[in-house]
């Protein structure tokens, strides 16, 4: 019996959701790099504001990652299953995809924090 919010039908599940958290990290990372390049172009000095311009979107990225992670958590916490989720059922499959999403979200969050903190510590172009 599945929660009305978490559909375990095959057609509602997707591998693309798994890829969302690291993609969000990647977009934030590449955006930060591009921003740094443009800011430092032509002898800019970067500094505090460059760091903030990277750290602030990091917070947005973290929020988005959290949303996807939350979605994964709901799929994971379908009642009735104990780890490991290796039963041949729709629920266990859903629990696995949910857990993998949550784990990837956690990793992507940590990696995003690393980027944000790095930029805050050293935002200079020099």
């Amino acid at each position, binding site marked *: 019996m599945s929660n009305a919010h978490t559909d375990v039908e095959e057609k509602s599940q997707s591998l693309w959701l798994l890829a969302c958290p690291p993609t969000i990290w990647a977009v934030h990372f590449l955006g930060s790099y591009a921003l740094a390049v443009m800011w430092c172009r032509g002898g800019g000095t970067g500094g505090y504001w460059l760091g903030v311009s990277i750290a602030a979107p990091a917070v947005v990225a973290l929020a988005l990652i959290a949303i996807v992670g939350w979605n994964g958590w709901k799929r994971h916490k379908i009642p009735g299953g104990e*780890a490991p989720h290796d039963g041949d059922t729709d629920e266990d499959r859903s629990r696995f995809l949910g857990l993998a999403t949550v784990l990837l979200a956690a990793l992507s969050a*940590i990696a995003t924090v*690393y980027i944000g*903190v*790095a930029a805050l*510590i050293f935002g*200079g172009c*020099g």
Partner: protein
Amino acid sequence: MICTVTHLGCLKMRTKANRKSPALSLFLALLIFTAIVTGCGGIQSSLSTAGEEAERIAGLFWIMTGAGAAIWLAVMALAIYAAQSKGGEQRRPFARRLIVLGGVIPAIVLFTLLVFGLNMLPSLIAHAPATAMKVTVFGEQWWWRVRYELPGVQPFELANEIWLPEGEPVEFILRSNNVIHSFWVPSLAGKMDLIPGRVNHLTIHPKQSGVYRGACAEYCGRAHAQMNFYVVVKPKAEFDSWLKAQSGPASLTDSVEP
């Protein structure tokens, strides 16, 4: 060294005879042997430092090596312990916790290292103060053209030879109009590339008088291996008199071979 031996002892106590601990002992013995026999010194060694930057980096290196060795030993001990365990369902909760910790602990340790390492970075890549001496180095194939253009002194050039005053920051301006080279004096500082079309800089604070050897650290063609140079660090007074002598008419200078 003492830590290593102690760890090894703990290891031997914890595990019964098994196929891996002879390998581990052999491996550690080799490491220790190599280090003892060869030491760390030399005029081209980043572990025998004579400059501010090299010193800071060497300090960082020793900390990371110590931590790394401890981590490696811990992981190997865990692996050997796991391979020897009788197993069973009762071990599963501990096994799961191990995986979680295997993610969480590295995340924390790496974060700490990141903060620590980044804090060191600005000082390593900063320009020297505006009043510091500037020396321009051109990478040629396959030698170093060193140009001194200082106020009050006639500009002059040296080949494969750099003289610096002890205790004062120097800014190297690094250029190339042929291929990419890399300027590296390990005893004094990290390296910086010489890239056609770019002007790079490297700040060095020599702290101790002596003669140090540098190398080209970016493959630049046939004689890349021969592209070495010497850095002579002298106390300020001696350096000043050398400088005055240099800016006179060209003459044979003293050899700097150690």
